């Protein structure tokens, strides 16, 4: 099986199929991340598509300074932050509605609990929000979180601890 690096090089060389292979390889993780994040299959698919569209453009100039997986995690986190910002405005303008049951995998009550949790996460400071998102939605170890964030492992742990404490206060 070809590595991510080989696939990216082939894509940069003009082989479009290499990009498709890369998407297929990382789709379950990315889609799973956004499912946890939005609890809405349609929105999760949309966000995953947006991330891979960005990747399509970015990979042409990718310089292999970091692992592709790390790069993709960062893109997921950035996309989730934009989504949270968008949703904040949607909530303010009362444009949000409960998704139709056919599109969700949980009950209405679970849906609202999840919404409440992500609303609280969206209000956390940027660093804490990123750490908690990676930890909750992607179940990443601190070592990887530290790598994605460009901080040391202890700093990631401290941010997570603060975030969980704040969430506990908000959600109790």
């Amino acid at each position, binding site marked *: 099986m070809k590595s991510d690096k080989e696939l990216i090089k082939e894509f940069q060389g003009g082989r479009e199929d290499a990009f498709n292979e890369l998407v297929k390889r990382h789709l379950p993780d990315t889609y799973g991340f956004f499912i946890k994040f939005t609890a809405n299959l349609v929105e999760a*698919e949309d966000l995953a598509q947006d991330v891979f*569209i960005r990747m399509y453009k970015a990979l042409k100039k990718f310089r292999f300074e970091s692992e592709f997986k790390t790069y993709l995690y960062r893109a997921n986190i950035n996309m989730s932050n934009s989504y949270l910002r968008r949703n904040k405005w949607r909530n303010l303008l009362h444009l949000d509605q409960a998704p139709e049951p056919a599109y969700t995998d949980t009950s209405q009550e679970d849906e609202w609990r999840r919404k409440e*949790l992500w609303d609280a996460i969206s209000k956390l400071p940027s660093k804490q929000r990123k750490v908690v998102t990676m930890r*909750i939605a992607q179940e990443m170890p601190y070592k990887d979180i530290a790598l994605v964030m460009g901080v040391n492992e202890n700093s990631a742990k401290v941010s997570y601890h603060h975030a969980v404490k704040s969430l506990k206060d908000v959600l109790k």
Partner: protein
Amino acid sequence: MNFEKHIKEITYSNVNSLDESIFLEKLHSKRRRRDIKKFRILNGLSAAVFVSLLGWASFSQLTDDPMIYVSNDLKPMEIMDIETEIYVYELADYLVDTSDDIWETLAFLDEMNFETIAIKNNRGLE
């Protein structure tokens, strides 16, 4: 209960499978649609810039000197001497009286070369 466990439970989902081929198909069509949209926006902007530049260039050609805008068509009338003018008025009266058609008279006067008449009149004066 461990709060961390609690928030993980809230976000738990057992749905994470997606048809890869359909996803890729949608992804590429969305990407192409965006590219077309971007191309159209760029084209629109370029057209707007071109029209603005053309407008500015045309406007900068305008001047406050009214003589620039005086039509060349009026020049033969300007050089018409008084005798020729009287002759043309008399001719016009006669033509309108005899033909009863002012438009035909106008067309006839339009086609007439007054310069030759003016020269003849001037020679008569000399």
